[in-house]
């Protein structure tokens, strides 16, 4: 079995790796690039714990092959904070106690970021349907949804402020 | 002499069906020893699977839990949880 040589960017940084043809992007992130923030809850696209953004699209990294990452821009949970400044989603998750065990949290944060990237002002129901691919067994989703809606408002405000030169 | 009540049927086979006993014992530990003397094997059964409730408070494993005459004393199955 020969390995594939893949070049891609992960969280803005260029990476190169070798991977087996059957290895998923999730395996590559976790086992080859040491980015264990993306989690495997099912390996079959049903739980969303492995959510990543590939070229702007939200995907389950357990459903794509590592080899398919060639030339693509991948965003993972590790790239969500800017240095030591948390993303508003991360901050609101903490304030709302939107995590208990925290295992689903990276996937939710990445999925929520993808939501707010394309819909900065989601309704509760839009947020619930968008995040329906992410399972959380601990929280009953209540605080997660509140955190996402509050973070959306924060981001809108920050954007508005920027626009008005504040 | 404290009166000991036994919940359920788990130890009936030791006590010949009795579910309430007067036992000369002032702590849970002495109670276990005394009951085991009277009904061989019962002591181990209590150690393994029963807790003691004294006046409504459940003690899982406290040998020193004091037994007073007039107290309500129950041996009940041990409880754990999820």
């Amino acid at each position, binding site marked *: 079995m020969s390995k594939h040589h893949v070049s891609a960017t992960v969280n803005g940084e260029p990476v190169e790796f070798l991977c087996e043809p059957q290895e998923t992007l999730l395996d590559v992130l976790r086992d080859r690039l040491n980015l264990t923030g993306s989690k495997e809850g099912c390996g079959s696209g049903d739980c969303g714990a492995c959510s990543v953004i590939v070229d702007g699209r939200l995907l389950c990294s357990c459903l794509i092959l590592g080899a398919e990452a060639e030339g693509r821009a991948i965003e993972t949970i590790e790239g969500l*904070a800017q240095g030591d400044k948390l993303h508003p989603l991360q901050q609101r998750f903490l304030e709302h106690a939107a995590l208990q065990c925290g295992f689903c949290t990276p996937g939710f944060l990445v999925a929520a970021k993808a939501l707010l990237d394309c819909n900065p002002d989601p309704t509760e129901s839009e947020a619930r349907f968008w995040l329906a691919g992410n399972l959380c*067994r601990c929280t009953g989703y*209540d605080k997660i949804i509140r955190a996402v809606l509050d973070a959306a408002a924060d981001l809108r405000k920050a954007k508005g402020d920027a626009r008005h030169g504040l | 002499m404290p009166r000991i009540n036994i919940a359920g049927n788990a130890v009936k*086979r030791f006590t010949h069906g009795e579910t309430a006993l007067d036992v000369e014992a002032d702590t849970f530990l002495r109670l276990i020893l005394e009951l085991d003397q009277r009904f061989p094997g019962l002591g181990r059964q209590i150690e393994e*699977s029963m807790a003691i409730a004294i006046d409504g408070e459940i003690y899982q494993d406290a040998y020193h839990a004091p037994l007073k005459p007039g107290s309500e004393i129950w041996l009940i199955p041990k409880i754990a949880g999820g």
Partner: protein
Amino acid sequence: MAYETLRVVGTRPIRPDGVDKVTGRAQFGADMTMSGQLVGKMKRSPHAHARILGIDATKALALPGVKAVVTSADFPEIPDEMAFVGEGPMNFRDLSCNCMARDKALYEGHAVAAVAATTAAIAEEAVALIEVSYEVLPHVIDVEAAMAEDAPLLHPRMITQGVSPAPTKPSNIAKKIVFALGDVAQGFAEAEAIVERKYTTKPVHQAYIEPHACIAAAGSDGQAQIFSSSQGQFMVRAYAAKLLGMDIASIRVTPAEIGGGFGGKTLVYLEPVALALSRKCGRPVKMVMSREEVFKATGPTSGGTVSVKIGAKKDGTITAAEAVLKYQAGAFAGSPVGPGCMAAFAMYDLKNVTITGYDVVSNRPKVAAYRAPGAPISTFGVESCVDELARKIGMDPIAFRAKNAAKNGTKAAYGPTFRDIGYAETLEAARKHPHYQSPLGKNQGRGVASGFWFNIGGESSAAVNINEDGTAVVVEGNPDIGGSRAALAMMAAEVLGIPVERVRPVVADTSAIGYNFLTGGSRVTFASGMAVVQAAEQAVAELRKRAAISWDIPVDDVAWADGKAHATGASVGKFQPLSLADIALKSARTGGPIGGKAQINAQGAAPGYGTHICDVEVDLETGHVTILRYTAVQDVGRAVHPSYVEGQIQGGVAQGIGWALNEEYIYDKDGRLENPGFLDYRVPVCSDLPMIEAVVVEVPNPRHPFGVKGVGEVPIVPPMAAVANAICDAIGVRMPDLPISPPRLRAAIDRRAEAAE
């Protein structure tokens, strides 16, 4: 010490481990690596019930990259006896046989061998190359079928306990238990209305999102290390030692962050196997389950049948109650039918009551604890029956419950008298809640149900170390499954009188702190909290002593307040207060490091009660049920961190709704699980649920310094009946069988239509 004004307890600080968990830095079970590690994989039985005639690993071992294979022959044979380590009584022979089948495979997915290899792909190939010859045996899945005279026997020596005279023939009934109070026949004779019905529930999985994972390394010196995700590092250590015949001191277990457990991680599945593989090849072995393995070989909780009969007078007084519970234990004895019996009627003050329970084995994975183990099943039956009875005599369901509610002084069906309980308070809060008065539309209905759980205390160790800059470290030994670090740090901060941000809690490995019973039974904030409080109080006593030494005054003249030592009594006003940091900085001159330590068996746990209100809308076309609104009221004693208390309640409710509407284990005719994945085993997702309002009632527990009772288990107890009662209110159809999935509800609606024609 009494704490009258609280500054930290009851506030909502950001949890100390929060940033790690929102940035992906937190290390869960599968995130750890060791140099030279191998990958371990399990070979599992494809049969529900089969004798293992032989295992041939020759071909697997010949595969390049394969380093070790283990089977039951690599585990010491353990005598068939009970011991009490960890989660209550445990038959270690059964636990050993569950980790690695001996002689017989008892369910599909039962481990029969394991391989360690250099890569996952090689390990998988090797698993396929292990040849197991089986004699397939007849199997039995359902509880009543397993109880039948002619059912295939799982354990040829199983004689039902709790029956006298003891049966002479073996059966699949491990145990019969009976609790009785008063005279039930007399009670039913006095009743003016009686409801009697049989309810069934299906096994459901805890479905934590993190699959089981561990890494184990054995050295040639006989010392071993395990890093794993579990509900208790001390439980893992004890079980691994017992199953492998090792000394406890030779095993060091470091707890990973745990990605959910709900009771399902109170047992070991992988750790002893990974360690046995590592012992054989001398390299670290990492094992991670797939989701399919999690469904097939771990958890779930019992399914069962619950027959309930309750009689009442027209004024609503219950005169008698009776229940018969039959719980599936899975392949080995030990369903939670005992607590199921004890919790069944714990909401009510009953004069005449009988509860009978059966613990029944069948060819399914051995059940594991799941939040309030046993109680949700019996309570579904009882609270559905209570609802029907209230309707029958035309009483409001909350008023009916209030009339019969257990109070301080009520005698439980299992004997003792309740004290410090807050059930009536939850009913009152539910009755007064605006939700209860709000209007309903067409095909909409409202259901109410209550629930009970014991909550436990147990063995706990904690240390509080004061650092030289005036910060503090809390060392504790319970995996943090839902924010307990925050609660424990808050309690320490409260006692020390410093901001919670200056307290760092650490969940220690088994070599760094004394024994702790596992994270379960809603015990950590209560029991480990009590240990932390005592350790912090000891540290405060030491801090006062050191201040007294610095000032050269008697220690009795030093008081501790607001994180500072104050001179009092004869010395009042003579000295500037000394802060914790001032004292800590000088500790070398006043006697050395400052800290406190407590190792206790926490007594005085108090039971919890909840009352839930659920609104549903039923789609008559499809049988689909929408949860419109949900309010869960619970007595928690005192909420240390209210957000995490609410979170526990909301999460428990969501699991209960899944149990009510969708979740079930489905078997084919060969006893193979048909839905071992999240696609077909459907847990509630975001879009299935509304906001869940958690209403916290605080009836303090006088035995805890801050009044804490347990929180995490009660909320899963009422939802199944609350949902079923709401459906009945909406469309007049009583659904006694769970889950109330769309096809099932649609069929019931059709049956009613046919009956009406």
